[in-house]
């Protein structure tokens, strides 16, 4: 079963909370050419935690996400993923760790030459899982994002929002232990953005998988803290007034540095001039 019930997943999550961080950055810096992009970044991601990375466009949010997955290597500092230092791991050794993560790219990054079925099942096909099992798991994943009818279509026939939802299904199908979302709502209309955020809230509350979500849209970021997924109503509902999701925290990047890390309440009451300006 790809998506277990909320209570089972939460129980597992509570047990996992005592464990080591899923991701740990220690004094990580990276630059391209003479330009420093990220400088001395330090943070951890606890099991079950959802961290929302905020910041203006071009500040290095996507770069940070790619560093987490070992798609880029830092110039300085160390990064731990699932308790293993990945900074100096050879590319071949990284593939096994990456297979345990799910990543949703900015524009979906679906493979143009493959059908939606083959896109979503890409990892399973590489692992030579049987066709019947693949079909069943793909349909379940597509049902989760409400796109079961796209099974045999090619990505070119889908809208931008549908592509992102397929990308989410692809990231979830392998039951990842960490999910990385790179601006999943960037460039989408408000209705489609809300659909995507609802899916992310649904995934968070159904599986309690730790995740990092990059966005520059405050509305999306706040919705994740102030809403939960209701299994009975099959939709996202607001939490009671004044309550926020305790496992959803925020980070903010400015000029390559991490200038904020904390809860929604701390974010809203931050004294930092840039944070206050960003929140306006």
């Amino acid at each position: 079963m790809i998506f277990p019930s909320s209570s089972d997943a939460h129980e597992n999550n509570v047990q996992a909370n005592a464990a080591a961080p899923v991701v740990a950055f220690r004094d990580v810096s990276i630059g391209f050419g003479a330009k420093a992009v990220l400088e001395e970044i330090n943070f951890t991601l606890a099991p079950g935690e959802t961290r929302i990375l905020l910041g203006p466009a071009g500040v290095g949010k996507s770069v940070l996400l790619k560093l987490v997955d070992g798609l880029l290597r830092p110039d300085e500092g160390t990064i731990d993923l699932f308790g293993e230092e990945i900074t100096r791991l050879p590319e071949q050794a990284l593939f096994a760790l990456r297979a345990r993560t799910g990543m949703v790219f900015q524009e979906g990054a679906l493979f143009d030459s493959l059908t939606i079925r083959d896109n979503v099942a890409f990892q399973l096909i590489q692992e030579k899982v049987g066709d019947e099992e693949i079909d069943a798991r793909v349909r379940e994943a597509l049902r989760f994002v409400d796109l079961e009818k796209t099974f045999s279509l090619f990505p070119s026939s889908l809208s931008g929002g549908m592509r992102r939802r397929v990308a989410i299904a692809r990231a979830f199908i392998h039951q990842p232990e960490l999910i990385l979302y790179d601006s999943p709502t960037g460039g989408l209309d408000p209705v489609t953005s809300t659909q995507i955020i609802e899916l992310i809230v649904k995934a968070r509350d159904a599986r309690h998988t730790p995740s990092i979500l990059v966005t520059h849209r405050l509305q999306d970021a706040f919705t994740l803290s102030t809403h939960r997924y209701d299994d009975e109503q099959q939709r996202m509902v607001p939490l009671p007034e004044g309550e926020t999701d305790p496992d959803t925290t925020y980070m903010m990047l400015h000029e390559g540095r991490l200038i904020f890390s904390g809860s929604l309440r701390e974010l809203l009451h931050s004294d930092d001039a840039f944070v206050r300006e960003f929140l306006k």
Partner: protein
Amino acid sequence: MAFSNPEQTAKRIVLTVQDYSQFAWNAFLNLFRPPVYWTDFLLQADIIGVGSLPIVVLAGVSTGGVLALQSAATMANFGVTSVTGQFVALTIIRELGPVLTGIMVAGRNASSMASELGSMVVTEQIDAMRALGVDPTRKLVTPRIFASIFVVMFLTIMADAAGIFGGAGVTVFMNHHNGMQYFSMAYEHLGYPDIVQGLVKPLFFGYILSSIGCFYGLRTTGGTEGVGRSTIQAVVVSSVLIIFVDFMLTQLLLSLFPHAL
């Protein structure tokens, strides 16, 4: 501009050569290391081989015909028109067949590999593949290199045959010489060293055009404009390299088979 700073340009060239050497070596080793993506290999063999067949055959026929036409007047001066078959066959099999096939396939497929992989880079499909735990070099590059090596050799054989028949057509229908004499001279003077030369070269050319196409495709930067730049670089570099390597290989093979001189 490329030469606005000679020091930077020199460093960039050295770095590119170093990166390519590393890439080409890894891609070569992958040919012998599992997993081998056989389905992708067959797909690429079809795209590169079957897709290139018409242009390769057409180029072969035309080149054979031109050789027969151009040589006819000179040979008539020396009264040796009977050796047209030998001249055309040896030139096509030893030299022009492999080189023309290599360049034609480079023009068609090195460009397509560079643009396809380049587009995948700029749309983050390559990163997505890596994030899904699959090595893009093994999945995308190795099948293309393997397929190119394999099919360029067979395309060369087809081009050689087309060239010899093209020469025969011109000899018989335009120069009005004896067709049997053409073929018997071609056959009699063709030795194994010639055939070895003609079949060894395409192995290298297939490797060059595919590895260069994939190399420039995978190092694409700068969006769609970058894809165009990579495509041009792939075609230019692979064509030039094929001609240069042909010279080196000819020297080497002639020293190995001196009686083929």
